[in-house]
C-alpha cells in the first residue's frame, strides 16, 4: 500500500528538480508571458483548502488546488481530478470516482487515490468549513491507485454536486508538514498550510502577503492545456471607488465586484469593457412568523404570524423600482426564492404582480392594526450588492402601508449571528446555492431547526409535513419523483409566504478590453479561462 510514502531526501531532491524545471519553464515561455493583475473586494482568509467555506477564499484556491469535479459557467459539472463519477450498480449508497492519471502536485509528487482518501477525510474533520457538505459520507476507501469509493449513509444521488469546492491535497506533504487537520480558523489557529501550498492546480504560489498581494505563476507540469495567463497578481482593494480607479489608471487588468453605478461609465470608457451575468444567488426578506410576540415591535402580538400582513408586505414591495434605481438594471426581479440555476425553479414561481399600496394598507388595518406597527429591520451593509440601499428602500415602501420599519444595518459579522441565534424579527439575507439543487435551500432555510437542519431558518418556520418531505429528498433515487416532491415543498413554502424575495443578483466584471473573462455564476472566475484578443 505504501508505495508512495516519500522519504524526506527523495522529496527534497524532487522539489529541487521541480523548482529548476519551473525556472526553465518561466524562461522558455517569457516570449509570450502574460501577467494578469486581478483586483477584488476581499482577500482569501486562509490558504488552508479545507478551513473556510467562503467566496474569495475558494476563488483564489481554485487556481492553486483542484477539485474532483468543476463547475462550468453554465452551471454544469466538468471533470477535473476525477474523469468519471457514478453511483455503484450493486449498492446505490456508494459513489465511484475514477481519477485522472499522470497528474502531479507542484512539488513533483504523484497524485493518486491515497491523496483523495486523505483529502475527503480531512474535509470532514471538526475544524473543516465544508463538513456540512460531507455529512452523509460514512467512509472513503481506495480500490486501486485511480479508483475511490465513497460510502454514504444512504442513497445520495446528488452528492457529487457538493464536491465543487472540496480541494485535494497531497497526503505526503500534509503529513510531512503537520497539517493533517484543517486550520481551526475560529480559534485563531495558524498552520503551515495557511501560507504554503502544494496543489495540483494550474498555478503555483510564488509569494503571498495577506491583504496586500498574492503572486501565482503557471504550473509547468499541469495536466491541462497551458493557460494564456502565465502569471497572476491578485490584489484585494476594499474601497469600491479605489478599485475602479485602479482599473481606469491601468494599475490592474481585471476588477471583480464592480459597483453597479459605475457600470455605465466603465462601458463608455475606451480601453475598458464590462461583462455581466446572473449570479446563482437570490436576495430576500424573511421574518419571524412563529413567535407569539416580536422583540422589537410595539404590537402586542406578532403581526408576521398573520397571513394578511405577509400579503401586505408582498404588495408594497416594488421590485421594479429597486431594479431600476437601486440596482440600475443589474438584477433580475423575481418572486421565486431561488435563482433560475437551481433545480426546482419554475417560470411561474418567478412571476409577481404590480405593487398595490392601498390594498396593503387596508390589509394592515383589517389584520387588527389600525395605527400600523413598528419593527426593526436588520440588514447587512457590506455583503450583497447595495444591501443597505435595498433595505432603506424597503423601509420607505413599508411606511406607506403604515408598517414602521426601523433600519438596523451593520457589518456582516454582526448581522449573520442574529439570524443564526434567532435574535431578529425581520431581516435581509442572500442565499447562494453551490449544489444547484433546492434541497440545499430546504436543508438550511426551510426545515425546522434541529441537528444539522435549519441553521439559517430565521423565520422559525416549522411544518412537520414539509420536514418529512425534505428528509426524504436526501435518499430518493428516482429523480422524477424527487423533482415532484421538490415542487410540492415549494408550493407549500410559497403559499405560506416564508420568503419575500426581491431579486437575483447580477455580477459584473470590468477588464482591459483585450481580455476576455466570462462571469461565473458562483462568482468564482478562473483565470485559466482568460483569453486575449491580439
Amino acid at each position, binding site marked *: 500500500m505504501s508505495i508512495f510514502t516519500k522519504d524526506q531526501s527523495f522529496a527534497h531532491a524532487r522539489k529541487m528538480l521541480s523548482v529548476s524545471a519551473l525556472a526553465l519553464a518561466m524562461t522558455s515561455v517569457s516570449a509570450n508571458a502574460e501577467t494578469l493583475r486581478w483586483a477584488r473586494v476581499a482577500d482569501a482568509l486562509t490558504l488552508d483548502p479545507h478551513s473556510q467555506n467562503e467566496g474569495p477564499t475558494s476563488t483564489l484556491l481554485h487556481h492553486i488546488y483542484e477539485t474532483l469535479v468543476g463547475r462550468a459557467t453554465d452551471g454544469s459539472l466538468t471533470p477535473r481530478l476525477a474523469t468519471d463519477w457514478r453511483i455503484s450498480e450493486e449498492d446505490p449508497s456508494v459513489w465511484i470516482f475514477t481519477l485522472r492519471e499522470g497528474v502531479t502536485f507542484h512539488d513533483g509528487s504523484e497524485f493518486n487515490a491515497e491523496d483523495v482518501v486523505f483529502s475527503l477525510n480531512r474535509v470532514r474533520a471538526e475544524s473543516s468549513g465544508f463538513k456540512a457538505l460531507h455529512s452523509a459520507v460514512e467512509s472513503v476507501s481506495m480500490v486501486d491507485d485511480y479508483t475511490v469509493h465513497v460510502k454514504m449513509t444512504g442513497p445520495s444521488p446528488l452528492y457529487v454536486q457538493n464536491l465543487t469546492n472540496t480541494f485535494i491535497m497531497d497526503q505526503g506533504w500534509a503529513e510531512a508538514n503537520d497539517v493533517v487537520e484543517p486550520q481551526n480558523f475560529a480559534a485563531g489557529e495558524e498552520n503551515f498550510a495557511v501560507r504554503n501550498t502544494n496543489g495540483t492546480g494550474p498555478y503555483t504560489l510564488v509569494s503571498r502577503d495577506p491583504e496586500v498581494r498574492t503572486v501565482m505563476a503557471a504550473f509547468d507540469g499541469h495536466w491541462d492545456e497551458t493557460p494564456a495567463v502565465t502569471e497572476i497578481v491578485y490584489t484585494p482593494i476594499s474601497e*469600491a*471607488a479605489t478599485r*475602479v*480607479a485602479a482599473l*481606469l489608471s491601468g494599475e490592474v487588468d481585471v476588477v471583480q465586484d464592480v*459597483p453597479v*453605478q*459605475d457600470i*455605465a*461609465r466603465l462601458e463608455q470608457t475606451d480601453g475598458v469593457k464590462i461583462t455581466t451575468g446572473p449570479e446563482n444567488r437570490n436576495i430576500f426578506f424573511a421574518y419571524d412568523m412563529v413567535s407569539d410576540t416580536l*422583540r*422589537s415591535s410595539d404590537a402586542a402580538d406578532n403581526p408576521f404570524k398573520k397571513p394578511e400582513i405577509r400579503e401586505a408586505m408582498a404588495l408594497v414591495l*416594488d421590485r421594479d*423600482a*429597486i431594479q*431600476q*434605481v*437601486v440596482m440600475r438594471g443589474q438584477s433580475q426581479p423575481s418572486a421565486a426564492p431561488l435563482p433560475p440555476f437551481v433545480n426546482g425553479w419554475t417560470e411561474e414561481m418567478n412571476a409577481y404582480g404590480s405593487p398595490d399600496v392601498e390594498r396593503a394598507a387596508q390589509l394592515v388595518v383589517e389584520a387588527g392594526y389600525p395605527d400600523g406597527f413598528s419593527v*426593526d429591520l*436588520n440588514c447587512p*451593509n457590506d455583503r450583497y450588492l447595495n444591501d*443597505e*440601499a435595498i433595505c*432603506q*428602500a424597503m*423601509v*420607505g*415602501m*413599508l*411606511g*406607506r402601508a403604515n408598517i414602521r*420599519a*426601523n*433600519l*438596523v*444595518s*451593520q457589518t456582516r459579522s*454582526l448581522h449573520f449571528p*442574529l439570524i443564526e441565534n434567532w435574535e431578529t424579527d425581520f431581516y435581509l439575507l442572500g442565499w447562494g446555492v453551490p449544489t444547484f439543487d433546492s434541497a440545499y435551500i430546504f436543508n438550511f432555510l426551510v426545515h425546522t431547526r434541529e441537528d444539522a437542519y435549519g441553521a439559517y431558518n430565521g423565520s422559525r418556520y416549522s411544518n412537520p409535513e414539509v420536514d418529512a418531505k425534505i428528509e426524504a429528498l436526501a435518499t430518493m433515487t428516482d429523480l422524477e419523483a424527487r423533482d415532484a416532491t421538490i415542487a410540492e415543498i415549494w408550493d407549500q413554502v410559497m403559499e405560506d409566504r416564508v420568503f419575500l424575495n426581491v431579486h437575483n443578483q447580477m455580477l459584473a466584471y470590468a477588464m482591459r478590453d483585450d481580455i476576455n473573462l466570462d462571469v461565473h455564476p458562483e462568482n468564482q472566475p478562473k483565470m485559466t479561462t482568460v483569453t486575449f484578443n491580439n
Partner: protein
Amino acid sequence: MNRLARMWDSDIAWSFRNSPVAIVAAIIALIIVLGAVFAPWIAPHDPFNSASLNLMDGFTPPGEPNQFTGNTYLMGTDNQGRDIFSTILYGARISLFVGFSAVVFALVLGIGLGLLAGWRGGWVDSLIMRIADVQLSFPSILIALLIFGVARGFIPPSMREEVAIWVLIVSIGLSDWVQYARVVRGAAMVEKSKEYVQAARVIGVHPARIVLRHILPNVMGPVLVIATIGLALAIIAEATLSFLGVGVPPTQPSLGTLIRIGQQYLFSGEWWILLFPAIALLLLALSVNLLGDWLRDALNPRLR
C-alpha cells in the same frame, strides 16, 4: 437702549464693524444656522420620513425633471430619492446640534476638571493633567471612534438608532475636553495667586464660591475663543465619523453621511450628491472658524 448703545460702542463691536471677514463669516453662519433651525418650515420635503420618499425619484439631476416621475428638485436627489436641498437643511441641523452639544459637554467637563486641577494643585492636579497628557498623545478622532465603538457594544442594536446622536455627542465631547482643561488650569493657577483671591480667602469666603464667582469669570475669555474654534472642529468630527459610517443612522443623514453616499457616485457622474453637501459643510466650518479667529484677535490685548 442704553445698553445696546454701550454694546455698539464696545471694543468688540468696533473690531467687528471694522473686520469685513468677520461680517461675511457671521452672515454665512447666520444663514446656515437659521436654515437649519427653521428646516421643517423652509424645506420643501421631509427627508427623514422614509414613507414620503419615492424611490423612483432617485438620482434626479439638479433642476431637471426625473425621467420616470417628472419631479424636479433644486439640487437634485440622492440614491433614495431624497431632495438634496431639504436633506442639507435637516443634515445641517444634526451637524450643528451635535457640534454645539459636544462643545458644551466638553466645556463643562474641561472647565470643571481644569478649575479643580488649578485650584487644588498637588496630586489632584497631577492626576488630571497626566490623564490629559495621555489623551493628547492620541488623535482626537481616534478617541471618538474608540468611545463610539465601545458604546455601541453596550447598546442593544434596536436602541442604536435612537441613541446614536447622543453617543456621538459624548464621544466627540470626551475626545475634546483636554484643551479646555489645560487652558482653564493655567489661567486658574495664575488667578489663584492674585491679591483679590488672597483677600477673599482671608475674609473666609467658601472655596467653591471663590472658584465659581471670582476665578471662573476671569478665565472665560480664552475659553470662549477655543470653544468657537472647537465648534468648527466638532462639526468636522461629526462629519468625519458619519463619513466613516459610524455616526448617525442612514435614515437620518447628516452632512457627513451625504458626502459618504455621494462619493460612491463620483465616477458615475452624479456629482450633485457629493458637491452640494460638501459646499454646505465647507461654508459652515469655514465661517465658524473665521469667527473664532476674529474673536481671538479681538480679545487679545497685545493686538489692540
